[in-house]
């Protein structure tokens, strides 16, 4: 894509940002219509299934947040959406771990892809906290039992003064607002990083240095 503004705007940070984006993330890399031959494997499907599960998690969670605990515990439709939320989270974690196994055995951090790997690892860690706050937000005996047991574990780490698992408002706020936003931003960044560098080539591919996102 060609710049509309000439190079005389070199002092501007917006122009500098635009030039960086044009250089590092051209449209054909951001929205490719072809992928390298080795991408034709079921292993590469795990990541996209994880994203699909995340869409279901967020959609079902939005509906649960709209109607509230009485609805999700007592009505048939509420219990259905509660189950939909729970099982889409199970799928999200199962396929995220399968994606992690696949990328680990491919050594996907090769050739400048270490930041992509690190963002993926951080996303995994944040997702675990999101799932934990979800268990605490159920509003039933199960969530009370988990909170009472977890408080000792969390207090032993020294962060109990800030992260109070017995404080429902704090846990619910984290679960429905901050953590989902964090995960969505991290996943979006992860995808952009994959698009920037292209899918990692096979380990024994001698031409790997030139095979970028085609």
């Amino acid at each position, binding site marked *: 894509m060609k710049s509309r503004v000439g190079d005389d705007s070199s002092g501007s940070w917006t122009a500098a940002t635009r030039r960086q984006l044009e250089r590092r993330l051209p449209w054909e890399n951001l929205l490719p219509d072809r992928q390298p031959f080795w991408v034709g*494997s079921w292993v590469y499907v795990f990541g996209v299934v994880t994203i699909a599960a995340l869409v279901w998690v967020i959609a079902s969670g939005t509906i649960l947040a709209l109607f509230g605990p009485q609805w999700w515990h007592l009505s048939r439709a509420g219990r259905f959406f509660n189950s939909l939320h729970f099982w889409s989270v199970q799928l999200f974690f199962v396929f995220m771990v*399968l994606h992690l196994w696949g990328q680990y055995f491919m050594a996907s951090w090769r050739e400048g892809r270490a930041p992509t790997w690190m963002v993926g690892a951080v996303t995994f860690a944040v997702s675990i906290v999101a799932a934990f706050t979800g268990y605490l937000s159920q509003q039933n005996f199960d969530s009370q039992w988990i909170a009472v047991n977890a408080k000792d574990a969390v207090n032993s780490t020294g962060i109990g003064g800030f992260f109070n698992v017995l404080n429902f408002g704090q846990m619910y706020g984290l679960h429905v607002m901050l953590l989902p936003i964090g995960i969505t931003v991290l996943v979006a960044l992860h995808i952009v990083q994959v698009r920037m560098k292209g899918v990692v080539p096979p380990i024994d591919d001698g031409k790997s240095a030139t095979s970028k996102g085609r």
Partner: protein
Amino acid sequence: MDQPAGYLHWGFILISWPNLLLIGLMVVLFGLALILPFPGHGSATEREKRG
């Protein structure tokens, strides 16, 4: 469903049967993803032949 899950206790290993079953299924799924052919995607040799 309303009862606690059964556990496998073998030496220092303690894991519920549903969790063990799920891990087993994930390993099987991972293995299948490696060996099953991807639809509409021939082998590298076939692709080279097609030019």
